[in-house]
Structure formats: C-alpha cells, structure tokens
C-alpha cells in the first residue's frame, strides 16, 4: 500500500468515508422499496425476554440435530388443536394454556431425562417461553426455547407430523 500517506490524512479520509456512508444510509433507506423504520420496537420481542430470563436459545440446525439423535425432549406449547394440525416430529403436546389454567405441570416434564426444548407457533408467540419458565421453576435448569417455532420450521419446508398424541 502507499506508505507515504500520513496518519492525519488517512484519518481525514476515514471521516469523509463515514460521512458518505451516513448519507448513503439515509438516501438508500429513503428510496428503498423494502425500507425499514429508523427506530423499531425490537425490545418487545419474545426473544428479548428469553435472553433476559437467561434461558438458552436453540437455533434451527440444532433442532434438526436433536431430532436426528433424539437427545432432547421437544415440547409443543401450542393449543392441542394447533398441535394436531401439524407439529415437529416426535414433539409432545403440553399446551401452555392448559398448564396456566390448571396450575399443574405434566409429570413427563418433571421426570429426570434429556433436556427439554420448548416451542410454539413462531417468534411472536410466548407460550413456549412461559412454559419453559414454569418448568424451570420446578428446579429443572436444562430447558431451552426454539424461538423460530413452527413458523421457521414450516418456512424451511421441514417434515412435520399431523394428528393428536
């Protein structure tokens, strides 16, 4: 590279490039057909609460891995009719609405065994997280949440099972 460039000159050029980038960002986001809001309410997303609660997040490749090696208990927290319409293969149905109403957590979630991964319909739904919190309160700390849920699972055209348990 040209080593005669002085540090001050480079710093000045860096500032010019940063200024150009700011103008580009403003210009592109102004005319872009898929423009985004400058400020968006990311803080209200369910994923934020998962992180705040200190519950582990599970990504899609890990879910596929868990399905292959059967190393986790997959728990569908959606209502039973949604579960019957289609769910991740091998997942058990524990609707959060029933747990919240009865105040009783099914025994299968309290037994010693593999770690549990909770999911519901998608990133906007918090049934999976709330059920994970409820199970964690019983003393289990190996709970995780698959935040993408059925929405992400379906968008990737992955196999699913139909029917009630």
């Amino acid at each position, binding site marked *: 590279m040209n080593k005669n460039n002085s540090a001050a000159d480079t710093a000045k*050029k860096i500032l010019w*490039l940063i200024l150009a*980038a700011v103008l580009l960002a403003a210009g*592109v986001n102004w005319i872009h057909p898929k423009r985004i809001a400058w400020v968006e309410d990311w803080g209200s997303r369910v994923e934020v609460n998962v992180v705040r609660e200190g519950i582990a997040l599970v990504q899609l*490749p890990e879910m596929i891995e868990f399905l292959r090696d059967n190393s986790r208990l997959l728990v569908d927290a959606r209502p039973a009719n949604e579960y019957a319409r289609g769910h991740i293969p091998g997942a058990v149905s524990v609707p959060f609405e029933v747990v919240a109403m009865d105040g009783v957590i099914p025994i299968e979630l309290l037994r010693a065994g593999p770690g549990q991964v909770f999911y519901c319909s998608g990133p906007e739904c918090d049934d999976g997280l709330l059920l994970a919190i409820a199970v964690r309160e019983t003393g289990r700390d190996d709970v995780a949440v698959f935040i993408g849920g059925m929405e992400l699972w379906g968008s990737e055209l992955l196999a699913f099972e139909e029917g009630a348990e």
Partner: protein
Amino acid sequence: MRKKKPVIDFKKAINMEYPTEYYIALMLGMFFLIVAFNKLMHPHTFSTAVFHEHLVPYPLVNITALLLMSLELVAAFAVVFMAKYRRAGLWILTAVCLIYTGCAGANLLRGLNTVCGCFGSSARAAAISHWTLVRNLIPVLAGLFALR
C-alpha cells in the same frame, strides 16, 4: 482548460509496488462489495441479525444496521475503485470485521446461543462457535496485512 481529475482513476488504482497487499485489499474489497450490496438489498434481514446479537440498545438496532451496511459498501467501493481512499477504506473494513468478531466473542463468553449474521444470514445458519471467531478473524488479518 484544466482537465478534471476523474473520481475513479483505474490507472492509479492498480498498485504494483506492493502487489500482494494490493491483491489482498482488492479481494477484501470485492468480498465486502458483494456482502454489503446484498445486505442493502435486504435491510430488514441484516437489522434482524443485529438484533439477534443483543448487544446494541434495541431502539438503535435499525440505525446501527443501516450505518454498518452503508459503511461496508462505501469502504469496499473505496478499496476497489478509489486508490487515494484505499487505505482509509481498508481501515474501516478491518475495524468493522473486528467489531463483528468482538460481538461474536462477547456472545460466546456470555453463553448466548445466537447466529452471527455478519456476512449474510440464513435460517439454517449455525449458532456462533469458536469457528465463527476464526472465520471473522480472517478478514481482520487480511486487512491488517494489506495495511502494513
């Protein structure tokens, strides 16, 4: 009449005094041109990737994403096409890669199992690991080598 200097001087852009550094800088610049252009085409995908890092205050996620992708594009353009601004562009690209590496490292340390959307994202992308740090350090080292 005085001849106007072209903004993009292709003759001056090719630096044969330091060919290795030049080609590394060129590769880095071209890589980021493609990556940044793709990010600008799908701004919400990149802002989601920034959100998944959980390191930027939530109201500033979109602004940060827009500035980062524009900065990458401008700096990459300078590295590839503007000889006079190549060094400045390289500093910016190296710093951006260092920021990405720092973010991945911070999330690895706090045990947050998230995806690094630094160079584009996919639903099937694996969560961050030590390999992500190594991968992110490659362009940092390349940038530092070209800058030496």
